[in-house]
């Protein structure tokens, strides 16, 4: 019975988010392809060794993947907005909340679906990036670059969880306050322009923040359900 609920719920969420998800996935894929086309172009123009030495040891470092910075965030924004905003504005979310199942489970199911989509898109980005990076560069560069990308990928989960929380919040002033908090929390994740492999020490705390943020939507959904102002 429970399984059927979730299948129906996931199908409903898929119908809402598919175009946003596929659109941002296309944009993300195109960005990664563009990054490596640009790298290959530079290799042709100046030589592979020169480019590799510049990427490794130039000061300030050459962050050839800088245009990827906001892609996971954009994916999270697109999925989150498509999933929650129209449904909350048009009050259709009330139908979901009045199904004969615990609200927390239903909202967790909705958020879980969004997080699964985000994980899929992030895995695709990582896979595509790794494929090209390993093809062009040695592992000594690939490992630190992946560490540099991790906070950007984690930022997508923070953004999604806060979007869900903000969308479900019934009080518009509190929406503003939550948005400000989300903005400054995201600032901690969207760090760049440092040598490859930087912010390695921040990753455990960032991961903990992502895990803790996954329940935030339940706080405002409860307020929404109770009609609190």
């Amino acid at each position, binding site marked *: 019975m429970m399984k059927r609920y979730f299948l129906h719920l996931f199908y409903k969420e898929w119908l809402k988010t598919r175009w946003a998800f596929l659109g941002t996935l296309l944009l993300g894929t195109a960005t990664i392809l563009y990054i490596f086309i640009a790298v290959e172009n530079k290799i042709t123009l100046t030589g592979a060794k020169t480019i590799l030495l510049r990427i490794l040891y130039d000061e300030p470092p050459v962050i050839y993947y800088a245009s990827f910075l906001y892609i996971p965030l954009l994916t999270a924004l697109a999925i989150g907005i498509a999933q929650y905003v129209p449904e909350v504005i048009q009050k259709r979310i009330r139908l979901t909340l009045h199904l004969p199942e615990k609200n927390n489970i239903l909202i967790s199911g909705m958020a879980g679906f969004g997080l699964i989509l985000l994980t899929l898109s992030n895995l695709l980005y990582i896979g595509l990036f790794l494929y090209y990076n390993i093809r062009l560069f040695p592992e000594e560069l690939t490992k630190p670059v992946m560490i540099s990308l991790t906070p950007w990928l984690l930022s997508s989960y923070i953004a999604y969880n806060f979007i869900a929380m903000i969308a479900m919040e019934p009080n518009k002033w509190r929406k503003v306050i939550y948005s400000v908090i989300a903005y400054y929390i995201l600032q901690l994740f969207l760090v760049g322009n440092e040598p490859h492999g930087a912010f390695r020490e921040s990753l455990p705390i960032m991961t903990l923040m992502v895990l*803790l943020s996954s329940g*935030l939507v339940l706080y405002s959904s409860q307020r929404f359900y109770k009609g609190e102002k």
Partner: protein
Amino acid sequence: MLTKIIRIIAVLFAVIAAATVLPQLYYTTFPPEGRSSHKNICYSEILGDFIISEYIYSTDKKQATGQTVCYDRHGKSYSRDSVARLLLLDNVSQLAYEGRFPDTICGIAVTPELVSSEAFSQYHSAQPGLYYGLCELRDQKSYTTRTLEPRDLFRITPEGIQFIVCATNQIDEEKSRLFTNCLTAADFRFPALRMWTSPDKNISEAIGYYVIDSKNELYCLSMNQSVPAVQKLEKPDSRNIRNITFGKSPDIRAILNTENGNMYIQHPDQSYTRLELPDSLRKSGRLTGNLFYRIFTLPAQNQQTTFVFDRNFRLVDSCTLYFQPQPQNTAGIFGEFLFPFHIGQTAWEGFYADWSPVKRFLWLNLALAGITLFYKRRNGYRLSNPFVITDILFVTIFGIYGLMGISAFPLKKSREEILNSQSPEL
């Protein structure tokens, strides 16, 4: 219950956001520090003593002005003109331009060109720098022909040295085998723990790399006309090497730090001289040199010690310069009252929380906790409720951030609390 636990997490997020941005905004608007006096120290080869120059600010009629005063360790003052004549090696360009540069200094015939050619300055870090384990080994003769210009970078793995051709990202098996055999013959134990070379291309070509093998032995690896050259080097002492910087002067091949904080100069003949410096572990410094001396400057908290060595690295003199701690202005003191800590992150050390002195922020935190307690009580919250206690604890510890957090995410009253707060009206 679950919602209330999640609310605590939300409050913590609000605290983190506030502790990140509020101090930043505040200290940008009200800078906590005013102007500081700038001090510099030089060693006079004429006096055989240090001369300290200090730029002193004074505020007169709200107009900030400053002047440079020069004095020695005994407090004797010198005019700027006399300082130029006492620090001949530091003012060579100006004196030569004015035609006042002498023919001899301390009985040695000198020319401006000779003095300039002997001057150098370099930074030595006690901590190893950025290291990816992928390096370029340039041929000692690579400046003669482009055919000796390497197309690859190398790594030293547990299996041996590998040269990676950058254009194909493939390993050059033949070259790798040649170098691996040469290293093995020199008793090198793979993999390498760390490698260093000079940022100067010419020195890097001539010396190659200093490599620490898995047994913590020191080797020099270079390449001459595509043939590997490996040499096992003596270590300065039995301790492991922590960091190496290559010298910019012909009499200094390298500066080495060992893990017990000793610092050594390696000479071109590969002999070592231990510098009579205090424990230099985690201390980085600047080495400058001139015709007569080698001068090492080690900065520390509110002080800087300058050690003067002769050309044979025997200690001649040393002087510690103390900088007065910056007097805090009102904005700085108020900031410490207001903000218990601020959160930030650095690229290599991760997140940090920088706490203000407890005696500064404690009173405001306690006052805010008192206000919170009063508010909760007045609004019918049960003070034995663990979530109410948590709120008060948050405000006591996090101060203004905690108050903002619990205000952004208000605690919902329990059914019992609502009934109790309504009962007097019924």
